[in-house]
């Protein structure tokens, strides 16, 4: 009961903050459209490239055209939905530097929630439905069972949980160390390597992408689930990684908060 009330409360707060973010985003409609066009251009060109590449070579690390494009689409789901939900993380550092984070700490809401999900990025909201439609049509080429689809969706949510864990960890780094803003871009660049099947990469990069920044767990494993290529223990280990990731990152956030000194306010 209490949990439901809390969920409702944060749902309402998220809706209000996102509405404000949308108002700010569409203040300049031309900018909004240009950004959207830029993202669509980048996405379309890379899909074209993958198509012609795999058509010309036959396969990529053992994956055919459909499988390669599906992995790329899954990467886009994780990347774009993550950016849609957690865009506020990119705007968090100025709050710490200016001391405005104090104003967030005194409110009767979770400061982590504000820092993590304080304003959705609505440019991505326009691309997400199209992405899911394309994902559906490409995914149907594998003739998946209902179980494969459900596991895929479960692992996709797990991938988003790992994304959330990384963003929470980065927020903690901002609070604790101030100067480590490059970690966010490093995470984005490593995640970008998930555009391709992790099998393409050689050691030790492959180990980094499997164990350290679990890009394989976030992207390649869910995609393989849709293709019916993931074992039961593969699913269990992936979910464990997601769960442990969230718990550790939240612990780190609490630890980091103890060191916030409000030095600039």
């Amino acid at each position, binding site marked *: 009961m209490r949990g439901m009330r809390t969920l409702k409360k944060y749902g309402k707060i998220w809706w209000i903050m996102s509405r404000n973010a949308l108002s700010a985003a569409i203040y300049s409609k031309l900018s909004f459209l240009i950004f959207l066009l830029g993202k669509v251009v980048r996405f379309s060109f890379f899909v074209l*490239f993958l198509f*012609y*590449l795999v058509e010309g070579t036959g396969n990529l690390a053992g994956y055919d055209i459909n499988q390669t494009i599906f992995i790329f689409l899954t990467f886009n789901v994780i990347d774009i939905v993550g950016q849609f939900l957690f865009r506020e993380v990119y705007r968090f550092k100025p709050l710490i530097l200016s001391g405005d984070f104090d104003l967030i700490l005194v409110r009767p809401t979770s400061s982590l929630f504000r820092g993590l999900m304080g304003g959705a990025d609505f440019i991505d909201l326009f691309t997400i439905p199209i992405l899911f439609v394309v994902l559906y049509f490409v995914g149907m080429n594998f003739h998946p069972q209902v179980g494969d689809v459900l596991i895929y969706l479960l692992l996709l949510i797990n991938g988003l949980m790992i994304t959330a864990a990384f963003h929470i960890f980065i927020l903690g780094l901002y609070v604790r160390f101030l100067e480590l*803003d*490059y970690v966010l*871009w490093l995470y984005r660049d490593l995640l970008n*390597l998930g555009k391709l099947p992790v099998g393409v990469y*050689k050691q030790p990069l492959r180990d980094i992408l499997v164990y350290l920044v679990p890009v394989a767990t976030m992207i390649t494993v869910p995609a393989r689930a849709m293709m019916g290529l993931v074992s039961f223990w593969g699913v269990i280990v992936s979910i464990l990684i997601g769960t442990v990731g969230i718990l550790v990152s939240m612990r780190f956030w609490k630890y980091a908060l103890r060191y916030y000194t409000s030095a600039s306010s």
Partner: protein
Amino acid sequence: MRKKYFSVCRISFIQELAYRSKFVVERLQSVLQVFLIFFLWDSVFSDPSREVFGYDRAKILTYVFGLLIVKAIVASTKASDVSGIISSGELTNYLLKPIGFVKYWFFRDISARGIHTAFAVVEAAILFVILKPPFFLQTNLMSVVGFLVLLVMAMIIFFLMLTLVSFIPFWLVEQTWPPIFLFLSISEVLSGAVFPLDVFPEAIQKVLYLSPFPYLIFIPIQVYLGKVVGMELIRSLLTAGFWMVGLMIAVSWVWQRGLVHYRAEGR
């Protein structure tokens, strides 16, 4: 007169290294992008005797390594800052000074390119030792000279194109970053910075060659690899030269028109 522009270059050089973590992140991003492309093609050419899209293993991996250095020379530019300066009204400060605005930014560009290129060469050398790719060394003097000339022209073409896009705030004051983002998204792909353009069918390639984008990265590297020789090399040099001169005229014209519209909003 030249002294003041070299001073601009020197100060810009120092400024570039003032924000070290930002600089390191930019270099890391370039290196990680090279990793993605390197392993992709390494996987495609896992059979060393394979030939795809007219490349063998040595040439395609040379293309990838060439990307790291050529991108640093061509695409490391400060011209994107111009739009913010026009939008905020800071341009007024520059107009009051006895210095050519476009020339000023060109010399700032040179220092940025110099630093990024120096680091790119070191990174390429380290990656070469770690990854041990087969490397195609061009020995034909015409190809090497053609490559270097095209590189210089590519530098100027990219600077001019980005400067043109950065002049948009003269008319649309709030459009600072979005047009630049769109331009960079398009140029990154169409210049061959993500993948060689011969992956596309001939029909698409013919359309792309009508634009200046392939002359930024793809064509210079093709010349180095010896895939563009003889009359084709001459044609490429002339086309790049045409774009360079055309864009210079365009920048000069747009600059004059822009100054008429400039209202120093934000000041």
